[in-house]
Every structure is written in C-alpha cells, then in structure tokens.
C-alpha cells in the first residue's frame, strides 16, 4: 500500500538530480560574489599603489591656469580642484590613507578584540565581568563622538586617527567573540580536549578559535567599510588628514562648497568610497555564504 504515495524511482532520481544541480549553481553564484569583491578590492589596491605610474601629476602640484577644470579639460582627466590640483592624482594618492585605515585599523582591532573576547569567554568569572563591563562602557557612548573626542584630545593626525579607532573598535569583536566562546566552551569537544590535559591557551586558540573565527572575520569586512567611512568622516571634520595631503573624506568636505558649480570635486572621491565599500561588502557577503555552505 505504501507504494501509493512514493514516486517512481526514475522520478526520485530526477528530483535528486535537479536538487544537486540547483545546489551547485548557487555555490558558483556565491563564489561569484566573493570573486567580484576580491577583484574590485584588488583593482583599488593596484590603483593606489601604482599611482605614480598611472598619473604623472603630483597630487599637491598647483596648476594656476586651470582651477576648477571640468573632467577632460585642461589636461586633467577627472578635472581639477579650486587650486588646479589634478583630481585623479588626488583620488589615487588619497586612497592610500583610506585603504591603510581599512586594513591597518581593522586588522589590529580584529586581532585584539578577538583575543580579549576569547579570554573573557573562556576564563569566565571576575576577568570576564571586568572586561565585559569595560565593553559596556565603550558601547554606552556614541562611537563617533568617542572617536572625535579622542582625536581632538590627542591632536588631529593620521596616526591619532588610527589610535582612536584602535582604542574604541575592539569592543565589538570582543563582544561577538565572547558570546561565541561561551557557547563553544560547553561543547563536548572542549570537554574532551580538557580531558586530554591540554592547557587553556591551547584549548582557546587551537580548539575554540577555529570554530568561532568565521563570525568575527565576517564582521571585520563590515567594519572595514565602516572604518573607511569613519576616516572620511574625520577627514571631513578636519580631524584626520591635514591639507594639502589628499584623503577622500577631506576631498569631499572641500568639494561641498563647489557642489553646485563643480560637481566632480565631491562626487569623484565619493564614488571611490562607494567602490571600495562595495568591494568589502561583496567580500563579506561572499565569505558569509561560503562559510555557511561549509557548515553542513
């Protein structure tokens, strides 16, 4: 009687085949997101490192004959600013600082926050309470206000901008990692590792970290975008890079006075921010999908 409900064998085979094909397609599509992000980021990195090869003009050289030249005129491919400085050169050189922030600030907070969260979650008790109350303290302030306060206190410079991000941004990583560690700590494989007499350090870094690292790595991609925008915002407020050094945020801020007459001044560095931000977002999405697919 049970055969009444079951599909014929060939039908079942068909269904199975369609399912696998569907899965394979979606894996390729997921990879595409990641690859697209990596290609875009690669392009951005190549462009800023190869800036001296790509453009002959200096980003700070003033061309008094062609101020506010629109794109393609006066020998400036993307136009020039109010001092006649070449916008293409400024975008490319300025990107060095923004990408340095994306990698430098993010990697330090990623590593630091992860270690702090791991230790807090695994050790538990007083150390955990202390570290997590510290995290709460940082979260109690609006992030940007805190960073502005620190930079204002230390004096505006690129290094102080890094420092401010290092001081404030580890807390998100610590909180994510701590939550993950508390869960992982109760898993049987951690108990088994303890039963083998492994040291706490070994258990934390060789047993818990590999299973929990994906979440902080994914968050770091989002955070990298956030840090670029943060650097741009600080530059915009005059707290980051100082003139005449180019930086995307500073350029947008300078360009806003001319937004009605010379749109390219603010728009082109803005597009650069968007391009890099999208690259990181795509990498983050691609990684998330890939890691989720590997979860089984």
């Amino acid at each position, binding site marked *: 009687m049970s055969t009444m409900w079951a599909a014929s064998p060939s039908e079942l085979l068909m269904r199975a085949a369609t399912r696998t094909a569907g899965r394979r397609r979606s894996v390729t599509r997921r990879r595409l997101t990641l690859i697209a992000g990596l290609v875009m980021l690669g392009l951005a990195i190549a462009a800023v490192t190869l800036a001296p090869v790509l453009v002959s003009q200096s980003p700070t050289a003033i061309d008094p004959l062609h101020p506010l030249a629109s794109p393609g005129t006066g020998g400036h491919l993307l136009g020039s600013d109010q001092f006649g400085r070449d916008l293409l050169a400024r975008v490319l050189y300025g990107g060095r600082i923004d990408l340095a922030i994306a990698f430098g600030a993010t990697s330090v907070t990623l590593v630091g926050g992860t270690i702090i969260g791991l230790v807090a979650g695994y050790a538990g008790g007083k150390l955990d309470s202390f570290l997590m109350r510290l995290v709460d303290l940082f979260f109690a302030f609006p992030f940007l206000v805190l960073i502005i306060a620190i930079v204002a206190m230390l004096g505006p410079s690129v290094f102080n901008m890094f420092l401010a991000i290092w001081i404030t941004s580890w807390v998100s990583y610590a909180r994510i990692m701590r939550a993950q560690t508390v869960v992982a700590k109760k898993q049987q*494989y951690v108990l*088994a590792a303890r*039963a083998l007499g*492994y040291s706490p350090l070994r258990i934390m870094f060789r047993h818990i970290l590999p299973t929990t690292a994906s979440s902080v790595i994914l968050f770091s991609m989002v955070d990298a975008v956030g840090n670029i925008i943060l650097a741009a915002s600080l530059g915009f407020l005059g707290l980051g890079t100082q003139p005449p050094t180019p930086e995307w945020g500073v350029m947008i801020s300078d360009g806003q006075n001319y937004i009605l007459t010379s749109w390219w001044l603010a728009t082109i560095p803005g597009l650069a921010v968007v391009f890099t931000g999208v690259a990181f977002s795509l990498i983050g999405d691609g990684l998330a999908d890939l890691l989720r697919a590997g979860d089984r």
Partner: protein
Amino acid sequence: MSVPGEPLLTVRDLRSYLATSQGVVRAVDGVSLTVHEAEILGIVGESGCGKTVTCRTIMGLMPAASLHASGEVIYHPHGERSILNAPASELRALRGAHLAMIFQDPMTALNPVRSIGDQLLEAVKAHADLSRAQARERAIGLLERVGIPAPARRMRDYPFQFSGGMLQRVLIAIALASSPRLLLADEPTTSLDVIIQDQILSLLLELQEDTGMSMILVSHDLAVITEVCDRIVVMYAGQVVEEGATADIITDPRHPYTRALLDALPQEGQRGPLRSIGGSPPSLIDVPEGCRFAPRCQYAVPKCRSWDTELIQAGERQHAARCWRQEEIEHEIGRSQA
C-alpha cells in the same frame, strides 16, 4: 577476566553538589569505589543517577563555579594525596597522560573544523616529546590499532566524513595516545547501534588486555556491563547501592534495585511484555528520607522510608549492598519460589 592487582584509584565518600537555580542537586552523594590495576570496573544505573558526574568529578572536569565537591580521589601512582580540588596544573599533567576519558556521543566529541589527523597528532604530542615523523608514525599506528582502514589516508579527513562507530574508534585512539593507566569510558556505546556497540566493546577489551590498563566502564545497560566488567558498582540516585564481582552480582543480587535491573533484562526465548521498574528515580534536589529506592521497591516496609543504611557486607567475598532487609528479602523470595 584478569586477576585484580593493587588498587590504582580509590574514591572515598565522593560528594558532588551542583548549585542550580532550582536548588542544590546532590548528583553524587557519598560514593566510594576502588579500581585495581588491570581491572575493568563497571558502573551501572539508570540515567541521571550520577554515573557521569562521578567520572567527571574524578577527572576534575566539572564546572568549578557551580560545584561543591568533597571526599577523596586518590590516584595511587601519583601519591596518597587526594587529587580532588587539586591545582589545575597538577590535574592537567595527570589528564591524558595517566587518566583518559571517552565520551558518550562521538559525533560531538571531536572538533568539527579540524582534521582527524590534526587532532590525533595533537594528542600524541601533548604529553611526549616526539618529532613530526615519529608523531605521525605513532598516530597512524594508533588508528590502525583501533581498526580504521587506510589510516594514512583517513588522517586528512574531517569528523563529518566518519560514521559514529568509526569516530568512537578515533576517540579511543586519541584517549590512548599517551598510554594512560586508567581509561574512563562514559557510555561509550550508548549512541551506537547494537552491532557497532559490540565491536567497540570488543576493541576496548582487547586494548585493555594488550596494555594492561584499568578501565571504568559506565553504562545504563546491565547486559553490556556484565559482559565486559570484572567488578560492578550499581548506582542509584547518586549513591552506590551494591558492589561486587560480576559473577556474584548476577547470581546473587542483594539489593532490590539490582534484582529489578536484572529482571528487566530480556531473557532468551521470553515472550510477553518486558518487565520494567515502575516509577522513576527521585529528584536529586529533594532527596527522600530513608532509603532512596524505597518508593519504587516492592519489598519496602514502612521503616525503609525513614531509615537508611550504609553498604552492608554480604557473604565472605567483596560483595556489599545498601539494604538492611537483604537477608529477609532473600528468605521471602525463597519462600515464594518453594
């Protein structure tokens, strides 16, 4: 069955109380037991009677924050001092190298994101100073010993690529990596099907005979325990209710709980419903006064509910039961059968 040697591990009056939001759980309440050299000791009892907590307390693996543990755990090769509540570093040096443990569910006892070989090599190198090549050789040898086909190739595989039985073999290999003197096997076959169960038990027996290590085998399955163990400890509600040599326990059970467990075993050629023990074990938060088994005991008299006893020696051999009516019950049963 091997002849038991000197005592290897002595547990005296072990109590393990856990603070929970509902109250204090008296998970282990005055357990004493001894494991001799080259002996397999079985701990049997229903789920939730403190078998696992006993093992984990011995290993020092209970969460320290919510635990109150008292009593003595003496691992004789380490000296006559109790290792219960010993400093973490001291316990770490013993764990793995002297005392090893295998767990109930092999599917979750290995790290899912690291290869089998990686985890086995880590265990091999944890308590010995070996070169990479030596460690690898030993790891492959261990996998071969526990019956993993094509061990060199399977080193690269991840836990999800193994079946439950194969994973338990890997876990046994990991536990034996540093040649421990005592292996605590906490329900090692519970999550496996019957045929694999048998294979794993035979493997454990073989390994025990080869290495001469001692073993504590924990199970809720009396059939498994009687098949493998030299001596048996029967636990109920956090206490030992009967202990003795396997043959004595099977042929001459003293405690009504042991009798009930034996009666519940399916007999060959038996028809009709399986016999079971009515009711369920008491809560370990509000432990009943008197004998803890009394509410479920068919031989209980009113006094059983208010009065409890220690283990009472039965006969000349090392056989004791925690029932003050054991002689009377013996006669009652004798009369009803006559």
